[in-house]
């Protein structure tokens, strides 16, 4: 082996070790990310391994327990539960992702507006505080009652539920830093408000915002499941996780597997995202380490 090869291999070795060390320092973040990647791989790759058919109805194969034909059994209409779970994962992750992106865009821009300009603040803060008053999913239920149940409307409802929290976080950061020396320095050099907000203040606030958004993502999955359980989510025959739980209630005695699987996968998804959120917090703010130390 030439010296050059040797160098390359040690360099690779070193970078691998660096990854391992990083993972060792950020256990929760690593585990959470791995769990999430596994879930995404499960939804993406399974259709290549077993045929996926979430919709075809067959009276002959209804309510079959888990077995070789149907790994997770079939429901009361003979639909394959694993296929339904995978399509459900798509819906759930899609809704949560879309709601989180909306929350990020509007939360960050409205939060900056309200932190920077007192006049805008009166308006934005009043409304976002009012939205925070409603307990739990009540606000989402009200929105869906007005708009009607659909996947897009669930995104809107979850967005309205979580955007006030991000607005508050961003607003607090802007208020904290707007009098800081580095802002004054930038301003005296003629930087515009937009430049100061986006290039000087935003990078310093990104930690808490990321934590808020990742926890919002996992809450969004729970809320989506809850709303579809109530019949306010994407309408049938869309196989939402919450809708599957609702459908399984009538067969809880005869076909408990229909009840167990969708809840288990929700729990798994939420744990992985919570781990990512907690891990991010620990990584960005070592003072708040939640385990050990």
């Amino acid at each position: 082996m030439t010296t050059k090869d040797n160098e390359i291999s040690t360099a690779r070795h070193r970078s691998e070790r660096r990854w391992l060390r990083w993972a060792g320092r950020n256990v929760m973040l690593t585990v959470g990310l791995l769990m999430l990647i596994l879930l995404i791989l499960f939804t993406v790759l399974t259709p290549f391994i077993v045929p996926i058919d979430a919709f075809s109805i067959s009276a002959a194969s209804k309510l079959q327990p888990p077995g070789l034909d149907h790994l997770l059994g079939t429901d009361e209409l003979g639909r394959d539960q694993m296929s339904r779970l995978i399509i459900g994962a798509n819906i759930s992750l899609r809704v949560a992702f879309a709601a989180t992106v909306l929350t990020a865009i509007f939360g960050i821009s409205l939060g900056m507006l309200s932190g920077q300009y007192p006049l805008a603040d009166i308006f934005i803060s009043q409304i976002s505080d009012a939205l925070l008053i409603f307990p739990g999913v009540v606000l989402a239920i009200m929105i869906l009652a007005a708009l009607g149940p659909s996947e897009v409307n669930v995104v809107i409802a979850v967005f309205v539920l979580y955007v006030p929290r991000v607005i508050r976080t961003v607003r607090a950061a802007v208020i904290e830093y707007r009098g800081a020396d580095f802002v004054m320095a930038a301003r005296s050099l003629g930087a515009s408000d937009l430049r100061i907000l986006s290039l000087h203040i935003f990078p310093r606030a990104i930690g808490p915002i990321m934590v808020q958004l990742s926890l919002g993502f996992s809450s969004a999955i729970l809320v989506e499941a809850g709303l579809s359980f109530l019949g306010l989510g994407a309408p049938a025959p869309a196989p939402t996780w919450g809708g599957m739980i609702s459908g399984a209630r009538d067969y809880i005695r005869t076909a408990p597997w229909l009840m167990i699987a969708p809840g288990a996968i929700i729990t798994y998804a939420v744990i992985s995202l919570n781990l990512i959120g907690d891990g991010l917090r620990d990584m960005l703010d070592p003072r708040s380490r939640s385990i050990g130390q």
Partner: protein
Amino acid sequence: MFAYMVRRIVIFVPTLFITLTLIFVLTRMLPGSPVASLLGGQSVNSAMLDRVSQDLGLDRPIFVQYIEWLPKILTGTFGESLFFTKPVSEVLMQRLPVTLSLTVFALVVTIVVGIPLGILSAVKRGSFLDYLGNIVSSIGMALPPFWLGFILILVFAVDLKWLPSSGYRPIEMGFWPWLSRLILPTIALSLSQIGLIVRMTRSTMLEVLDTDYVGMARAKGMPEWIVIMRHALRNAMVQIITAIGLLFALGLGGSVIIEQVFALPGLGELITTAAIRRDYATLEAGIFYLTLTALVVNLLVDIAYAYLNPRVRLA
């Protein structure tokens, strides 16, 4: 203290007003006429639709409807629901006790289990118990409460047959029939809240245990449990109490779904049913009551907080 209370109650008024306006706007927004929903399967012509709308006052400008609606909701007369034969306020009064017993039970369980667990995790930081507490709270927060409800039914009602699976009996029909039907919903509702309060108590206690006055108490040679209970916990309590107000609101929100699982005829069940059939009067009134309860509890918590923490009331 009195000045603080007055100030706090004055802030309460605009909050209430904005909440009411939001409720009104959202419930009147966009499609889906309640009249069509009420007439349901009947074959309706547009003339009949118009007549029913007129009878109910739904044809007038939305602003006029709002002005008429505001004093009514504030005085507790919510008008007639299109789906119940009695006034909405009567329906609400029947259902409020169900929701309140459920949320208060869940809150009590949460406090009794969660706060000691949080304190222990903080005091025995890094120990097996701490890790266990962390795992339990992580899982508790990730379980969808409504699914947990069904799993509890599966285990304790279907398999073990220890408790009834669903329904509600008023306390007048006996203490056990009433209590036994609330046990499973209470567990389902409180587990995620326990997760939250454990974490919150733990981090608050850790902060307090790090302060100079706790070090001082230890240096004086006080027994550790007195240091923890009298010096640390008392100060940590100030923050934990704020979290309790939050927990109560969370519990009210959670009860909305849990009541569906256990077929409990509470406010939440009323709200979700009203939402699905666009029963405005009931939806508004139910949400108003639920939100008002949360607001009042928060007000009381804030006042208790100020009482415990002079820095707040004198600020």
